[in-house]
């Protein structure tokens, strides 16, 4: 039974190799001459004016969470679309109910002003 998992092991090993080898090679082979200018954080051509670990606006989280929420439904929609012909009306209606519930959430967040930045 374990033998069936061999391809996966192989996949993990290759993946690790592809990630690790270039970094190691670069560190070993590349020239290494640091100076203060080079070590300073790069920020789109500006001078760095703040620490990178700053607080940021909680609204980013809100947007992120809402994004994930509505993005994930796609994960259901793709397989559903692929087999829609076979699952028939029942499948169609089930998805519509699911979407309707999402729409309720969407209406709620819209009306509550979660989509407005200010």
């Amino acid at each position, binding site marked *: 039974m374990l033998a069936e998992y061999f391809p996966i092991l192989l996949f993990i090993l290759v993946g690790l190799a592809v990630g690790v080898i270039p970094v190691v090679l670069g560190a070993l082979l590349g020239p290494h001459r640091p100076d203060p200018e080079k070590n300073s954080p790069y920020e789109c051509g500006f001078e760095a004016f703040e620490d990178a670990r700053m607080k940021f606006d909680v609204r980013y989280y809100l947007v992120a969470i809402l994004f994930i929420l509505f993005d994930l439904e796609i994960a259901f929609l793709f397989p559903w679309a692929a087999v829609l012909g*076979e*699952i*028939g*009306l*029942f*499948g169609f209606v089930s998805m519509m109910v699911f979407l*309707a*519930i999402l729409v*309720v959430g969407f*209406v*709620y967040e819209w*009306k*509550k002003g979660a989509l407005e930045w200010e």
Partner: protein
Amino acid sequence: MTTPLPDFALALPEIVLLAGACALLIFDLFARGERREGSVRFAGLVLLATAAATLFVLLGTGGALAYTFNGLYVADVMALLLKLGATLAVALALAYSRRYLHDRGLLKGELLALLLFALLGMMVMMSANSLLTLYLGLELLSLCLYSLVALNRDSPVSTEAAMKYFVLGALASGLLLYGMSMIYGATGTLTITEVARQVANLQANSAQHGFLVFGVVFLIAGLAFKLGVVPFHMWIPDVYQGAPTAVTLVIGTAPKLAAFAMAVRLLVNGLLDLAADWQQMLVILSVLSMAIGNITAIAQTNVKRMLAYSTIAHMGFMLLGLLSGVVGGNWLNAAEAYAAAMFYTVVYVLMSLGAFGMLVHLSGKGFECERLEDLKGLNRRSPWQAFIMLLLMFSLAGVPPTAGFYAKLSVLSATVAAGQIWLAVVAVLLSLVGAFYYLRVVKLMYFDDPAETAPALEGERDARVLLSANGLALLVIGIVPQPLMGLCFVAIKSL
């Protein structure tokens, strides 16, 4: 190929509730008015419709066992009765706390929607016939409760409580899920009835058996968290105290019914053949809970916290009923024992509703009735409320002829019938310890002078009438326990 349609009618209560909750959310968005009267009424209607739908299903199936959604969902008498009970509990909680919530600016559409979704989660748990369905319901319920606790965003205590609840709840969910995966690994199925069939054919002492027991330990850990028994109880006092009393009222009542259903689904429906194993685990949990719950409650000065510890003790007592069902492979007493546990849970929910409801009722605008001192001399200030509280405390302490006494008696007689004499003795002794702090409340109400600063009572009339009915119901059930006991018996028989 077309998929055959499942029997939707069996899940009518959930469907009605879901539709109602969604509609409420939208309705509330467009409703005006400070008091949210329309929304509250709407929520009431949804609860009513849910109860009606449950009754409809109950009458429709005539109590016959029925599965639907490919065996993911079961409708039996126990599920339906518990659903009715939970609906009633949520409705009562809402009725008790309406003024309290309004005074504190918490009476929002979100609260109502969360309440309804929490109820939906409970119902799904009650009707779960698959580990996944159960988990789904549990998460729906828990997530709603987390946000309810944090509803008062500006209160640091509430936020802290919600945070703790959430983190620990997530941990417990993880444990439960891990246990479920073990069960799945050992039996290859998620359907509870199927699990039961697999377990019944199991060889004793096989590797699979050990694997299953391993899973059962985790399952019980998750379950114990939900019930709040030692050592998975730590969240209870902090959350009960931290949450606004109205929310505590919700957390401390209806979810216990769901937790009971969950215990029965997992342990009785699924793993009855492993009873010898899980009963021993429950013994540990039960004794620890009764001991720690009752003893710690004594040292509390906050009524909510005291009642939180009392919950721990009561749930420990309820476990006594669950663990006395099967003795050495003999199932004769099982129905009595489980019915006693169910009776205990239902009565506990009633008592808890009354006790927290009374605290909510006694709290005024800008005044939280939550320290023991706040109850001082209540008899002098409002004798009727004091009398109802007295009934509640007597019932919690198990003084005859209240329902609490009969509940304790029936659980104890099941324990004794199971031959667990020493457990019964321990339970009685620890209940005696418990009687102390309940009676202290009575003493404070009746024999102490009221504090000078005690504010006048402003509770509204319908809440008072309902609370009185709640308190008196305990007396009536105590004197005439047979109908409720009979219902519990029928429910357990229907499994």
